[in-house]
């Protein structure tokens, strides 16, 4: 089978790219191992809602049409949103098609699937950043009686045995799940490493509204100090909820969750925690305040101070004087690893990975000509990890891709870009 461009993955990023390719009349197909919005359907917990308000999840040619622009989509709503989008843009999605290899061919690329092989000039990798949950090596030292679960498999507290739970990781997933589990009557200890604290609402507006308006989400990958660093920053400590509550460590402490440092070892039936908790929290508070400073400056420059609430700062994160450096795992029934995800490129047979297994790319333009990457943290801007960021990235990269296809037209018989 032949086409000009194969898009891998029918999530928000792959669909946004499909729409941009259609606009440019570029012949393409979107291959999807499951169904549209597969990860949202099969790998997310029940209570999860998007962290961005409804109005801020825009895709090319498609915005929010409902009556709750400031609400946060539930998973069923997110799935329905993406399914509707796929319909509206008539995306040429082939579902139930698992890619087993992408490799170079004499005249472009070969995409091998369990339902046949595609030949194409260009490949767009939109398979996402969250394929494989990270589980630290220390997991192997856990006593055998302890259940372990990752956010990919976690659905709700009822699936856990009664008893204490150690949640490892305090970013969006860890903090949300810790709160939910603790409220179910299973006492939670939360191991806290690097995390990014932000308030849900600041000066009367949603933090994402500020970040969008003040241009924080538009910070570019080629203008930040250290792009590797920003691409590895953990998710914001946020929850999308009707009460628009903050999900910072002070709140978790208030409901009775025990904060400890980063999990660094398991020995003699004890979990060991780093003594770095005070600095992790201090760094996070400093970072939050720098963001709020930037927002305040922007508000003043744009004469908004009269329209919104007065600037203020939040209580610093409270850390007890001597947080425990270990807990007896006898009191822990389940360990939940909220320690991030990594992408799965086991099917990618191109020499484009760096030593850490990440795709080498310049703002989504992969080193191998005609290959593009989409839907990754800080791919081109800070919002690249958001649904709302896929549009700008897809618009830019589809332009680059179109120029690339044009350049191959000089080689007769190779380019299949229809008029």
């Amino acid at each position: 089978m032949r086409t000009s461009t194969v898009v891998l993955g029918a999530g928000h990023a792959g669909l946004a790219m499909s729409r941009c390719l259609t606009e440019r009349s570029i012949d393409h197909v979107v291959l999807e191992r499951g169904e549209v919005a597969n990860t949202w359907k099969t790998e997310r917990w029940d209570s999860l809602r998007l962290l961005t308000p409804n109005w801020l999840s825009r895709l090319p040619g498609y915005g929010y049409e409902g009556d709750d622009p400031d609400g946060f989509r539930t998973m069923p709503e997110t799935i329905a949103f993406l399914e509707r989008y796929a319909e509206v843009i008539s995306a040429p999605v082939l579902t139930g098609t698992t890619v087993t290899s992408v490799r170079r061919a004499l005249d472009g690329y070969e995409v091998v699937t369990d339902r046949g092989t595609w030949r194409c000039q260009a490949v767009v990798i939109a398979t996402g950043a969250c394929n494989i949950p990270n589980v630290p090596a220390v997991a192997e030292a856990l006593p055998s009686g302890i259940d372990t679960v990752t956010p990919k498999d976690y659905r709700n507290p009822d699936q856990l045995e009664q008893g204490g739970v150690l949640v490892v990781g305090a970013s969006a997933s860890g903090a949300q799940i810790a709160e939910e589990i603790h409220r179910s009557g299973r006492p939670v200890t939360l191991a806290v490493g690097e995390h990014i604290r932000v308030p849900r609402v600041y000066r009367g507006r949603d933090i994402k509204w500020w970040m969008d308006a003040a241009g924080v989400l538009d910070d570019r990958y080629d203008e930040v100090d250290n792009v590797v660093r920003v691409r590895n920053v953990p998710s914001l400590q946020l929850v999308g909820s009707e009460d628009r509550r903050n999900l910072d460590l002070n709140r978790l402490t208030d409901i009775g969750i025990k904060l400890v440092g980063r999990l660094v070892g398991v020995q003699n039936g004890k979990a060991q925690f780093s003594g770095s908790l005070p600095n992790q929290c201090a760094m996070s508070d400093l970072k939050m305040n720098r963001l709020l400073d930037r927002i305040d400056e922007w508000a003043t420059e744009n004469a908004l101070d009269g329209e919104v609430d007065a600037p203020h700062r939040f209580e610093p994160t409270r850390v007890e004087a001597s947080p425990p450096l270990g807990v007896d795992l006898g009191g822990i029934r389940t360990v939940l690893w909220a320690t991030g995800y990594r992408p799965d490129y086991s099917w990618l047979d191109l020499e484009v990975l760096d030593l850490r297994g990440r795709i080498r790319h310049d703002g989504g333009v992969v080193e191998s000509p005609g290959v593009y990457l989409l839907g990754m943290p800080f791919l081109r801007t800070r919002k690249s990890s958001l649904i709302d960021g896929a549009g700008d990235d897809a618009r830019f990269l589809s332009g680059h891709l179109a120029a690339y296809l044009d350049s191959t037209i000089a080689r007769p018989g190779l380019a299949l870009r229809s008029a």
Partner: protein
Amino acid sequence: MSTVTSPVDNGVNVEALLGAREALTAMPEAAQFTWRATCEWVNGTHSRSRVEGFFGLGEEQKHRTEFTYDADHPEIFASEDHGATPVELVLAGLASCLTAGVASVAQNRDIQLNSVTATLEGGMDIQGILGIDPDVRNGFSGIKVTYDIDADATPEEIRAVVAQSQKRSAVYDVITNPTNVTVEVN
């Protein structure tokens, strides 16, 4: 009217450090270092440690000269006090590591330092080392580091420099996280 601003100079060659980071990202094997010390018993609780050679960047390296450190215990421990106690050397190591980090991070952030002083306190219940109470650990119950920094920066910027220095400090990591220690006898 024109203002002449002299470039920030904390005596740290940030370009060289950033260059090394870039080079070692591509060559992780060259980033494998081994640090060494030898220690010889002198008499009583007095010992003398020496450092000179280490391994890194794929080959044997040497300090400009050999450095020696005497360690002993104070007279209230019925010792002769020929040097710092080993735990004081640990505090000194932590302070030096964090302070080197403060200078480097400040340089990288274009912050001129005028003076930096760290004061360290490590609390210890010596019922542990004396074997009086098995529930008391031998080591510090906690370490408090206090910085007094005069720099051309806001208090928040200075706090951020100190926080980043902890994040990148080897000795801070050694102290805050467990390390496997193997002791063998030839």
